[in-house]
């Protein structure tokens, strides 16, 4: 199954557009919907295709069955998606994104939480990195709207989360059976567990089905219970927005003054280039392609790339790193029924070094300089029987015995640690290689710092304490040497008030170009340790407000 074909669609530019949005992931979809709702003429240009909803089960099957490369689930890879990873650590870019209507949320897991207050003042709090020019209160109303838009299932039982007034739009998913096993051990250690906000329907919401338990959320939810941004693309279209798929933007062109973008130049499958003019342009093509597109748009007025007088475009690339530990128990743990999480702990977020004490022991303190930690209790530890069966060299009764032996007693914890912004972690153009349109490909230069390593080790220490208390054996740990990225692309067009050090202002408009805004985690100043997309959605809604004001 290749990408669905809509080759006869009209891909010529609109005569008159108030706003041109580049990218149809959650950021672009929300900006487009908000502005179309307010009567603005919106055109969205999306590099990838529209995927048919009906084909999702087939995509799910590809994800489960060996023989299909993971990248084929959402048709990623090939010349279109070429990249270079020349840094100290290899970065698997195409596993970390999806191109198409809905963007990377087609593949995502769907955990959505607000940044903590401290995330906005890392410099003030810890003396590292930098503060954001906005704070939690500025985003607070937008967080609420973003939760309503996405349909977040959650509960107000997280004592470490920032304050909120409104209940979540949907009730939280109840804790899993394995959560109840963890809860006993955590109580003895004084570790607090709480629910996880999920962009996933615990009940029917917004004409989408409730979760039916396919257990394959990442990389594909066949029922549509997991939120993905094609939802808001459709809503935007219903409000009159135009969405042109398979229309990768090649570069932005400014007027003579260099202070306004005149048009987005995009290519269509027939090999033709078009110009979409608009009064305002919003970049929402993700934390790697946004800096790349700015760098590709260099001109005599912007010799180092568009909106890059600060030199910060592409710099300060940040990721969240995974820290984990798992083992087996002497009893059944009921894993792999669903593909999402129902319990977390943010206890070590604002005070990662704290000791805890419970009814019988506790987690030891650490006096190291550490960043925030988010801890997760997994519902899919160990093997999935169906996947194991498809890989096995055994058949019949031997296979069944092997499956019974391997499945059933695993437990695991995960966690996220956010890395510090560093100038040398960056996206540049690799001018020696080109994509299917002859444009230089992005080069990711990536490595992690000592504080991030230490924080991963600290997360492992806490995880080990909990697993030991639980009586787990065969414990194995994913620490700083085995960690990998969580696929969150942050920091590459950072926000700030000083045009010599940042790319966009607190209203998300570029300092250098008057009608160009950015809606993305690329504007994050620091990474925090929570998954970024709720904050991306909140920023997108804020961005839409500012664009609307200017129009």
């Amino acid at each position, binding site marked *: 199954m290749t990408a669905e074909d809509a080759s006869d669609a009209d891909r010529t530019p609109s005569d008159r557009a108030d706003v041109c949005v580049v990218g149809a992931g959650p950021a672009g979809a929300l900006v487009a919907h908000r502005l179309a709702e307010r009567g603005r003429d919106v055109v969205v240009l999306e590099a990838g295709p529209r995927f048919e909803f009906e084909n999702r089960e*087939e995509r799910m099957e590809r994800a489960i069955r060996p*023989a299909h490369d993971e990248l084929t689930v959402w048709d990623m890879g090939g010349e279109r998606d070429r990249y270079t990873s020349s840094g100290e650590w290899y970065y698997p870019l195409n596993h970390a994104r999806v191109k198409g209507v809905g963007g990377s949320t087609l593949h995502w897991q769907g955990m959505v939480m607000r940044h903590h207050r401290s995330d906005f003042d890392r410099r003030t709090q810890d003396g590292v990195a930098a503060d954001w020019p906005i704070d939690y209160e500025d985003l607070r109303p937008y967080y609420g709207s973003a939760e309503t838009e996405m349909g977040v299932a959650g509960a107000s039982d997280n004592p470490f989360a920032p304050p909120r007034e409104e209940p979540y739009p949907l009730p939280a998913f109840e804790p899993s059976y394995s959560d109840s096993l963890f809860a006993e051990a955590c109580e003895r250690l004084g570790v607090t567990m709480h629910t996880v906000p999920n962009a996933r329907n615990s009940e029917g919401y917004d004409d989408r089905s409730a979760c039916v338990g396919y257990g394959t959320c990442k990389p594909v939810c066949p029922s549509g219970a997991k939120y993905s941004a094609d939802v808001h693309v459709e809503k935007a279209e219903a409000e009159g927005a135009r969405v042109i798929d398979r229309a990768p933007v090649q570069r932005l062109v400014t007027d003579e003054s260099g202070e306004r973008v005149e048009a987005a130049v995009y290519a269509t499958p027939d090999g033709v280039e078009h110009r979409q003019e608009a009064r305002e342009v919003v970049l929402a093509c993700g934390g790697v392609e946004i800096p790349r597109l700015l760098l590709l748009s260099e001109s005599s007025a912007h010799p180092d790339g568009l909106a890059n007088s600060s030199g910060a475009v592409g710099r300060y690339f940040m990721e969240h790193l995974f820290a984990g530990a798992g083992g087996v128990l002497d009893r059944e743990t009921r894993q792999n029924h669903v*593909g999402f999480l129902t319990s977390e702990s943010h206890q070590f977020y604002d005070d990662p070094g704290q000791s805890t004490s419970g009814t019988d022991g506790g987690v030891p303190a650490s006096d190291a300089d550490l960043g925030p930690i988010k801890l997760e209790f997994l519902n899919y530890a160990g093997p999935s029987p169906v996947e194991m069966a*498809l890989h096995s060299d055994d*058949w*019949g009764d031997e296979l069944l015995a092997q499956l019974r032996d391997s499945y059933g007693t695993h437990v695991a914890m995960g966690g996220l640690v956010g890395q510090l912004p560093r100038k040398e972690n960056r996206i540049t153009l690799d001018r020696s290689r080109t994509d299917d349109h002859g444009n230089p490909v992005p080069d990711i230069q990536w490595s992690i710092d000592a504080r991030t390593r230490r924080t991963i080790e600290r997360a492992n220490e806490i995880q080990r304490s909990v697993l030991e208390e639980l009586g787990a054996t065969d414990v194995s740990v994913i620490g700083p040497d085995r960690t990998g990225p969580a696929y969150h692309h942050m920091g590459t067009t950072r926000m700030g008030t000083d045009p010599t050090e940042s790319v966009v202002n607190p209203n998300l408009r570029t300092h250098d170009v008057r009608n160009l805004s950015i809606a993305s985690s690329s504007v994050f100043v620091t990474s925090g340790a929570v998954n970024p997309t709720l904050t991306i959605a909140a920023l997108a809604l804020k961005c839409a407000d500012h664009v609307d004001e200017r129009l």
Partner: protein
Amino acid sequence: MELTRRDALAALSGAGIVVGGTASALRRNPISFEEQSTSLPSGEEVMETLVAVADLVYPSAISNVREFVVGYAGTRMAERAAYRSGVRDAVADLDSYTAVHFDAERFAGLDASDRSVLLDQLGVRTADPSPEGTITQRVRYYLVNELLYALYASPTGGELVGIENPQGHPGGPTSYRQGPPE
């Protein structure tokens, strides 16, 4: 444990073939191919081959294999053209191999131990499945893995292992909360 028509339906709804269907959506008879061909196997022959492979790869604890396979694979062949031609070609190649190396016309005609020897000899056990690969890879993909997927993504197959809501099966949002059966 008996494989039911509900299992076949469950495996198919997981695969998106039957949506919101009832057991009446399942095929009771092997499909007949529209274009008859003298060199390629008939619908009935493909089905016999699948049943003969299932006999090897399914555990002895389950019964009612034929009805399950006909219901599952038959419906899948009727609904999905790529599967229909892929499995038919794989069976044709498997039969040719049988004719050259064994004293029989067709794989389904061999007794159980010869079938097992043949698949081992062909390297199917350790093969990387591929829908476009060598005969070995295609036998693994269209026959062995197709059948294993149908079984272990169904509630009955899952239950044999201890998971009544296996991955790929929409078994509802409550089983993950329940503890093990007493």
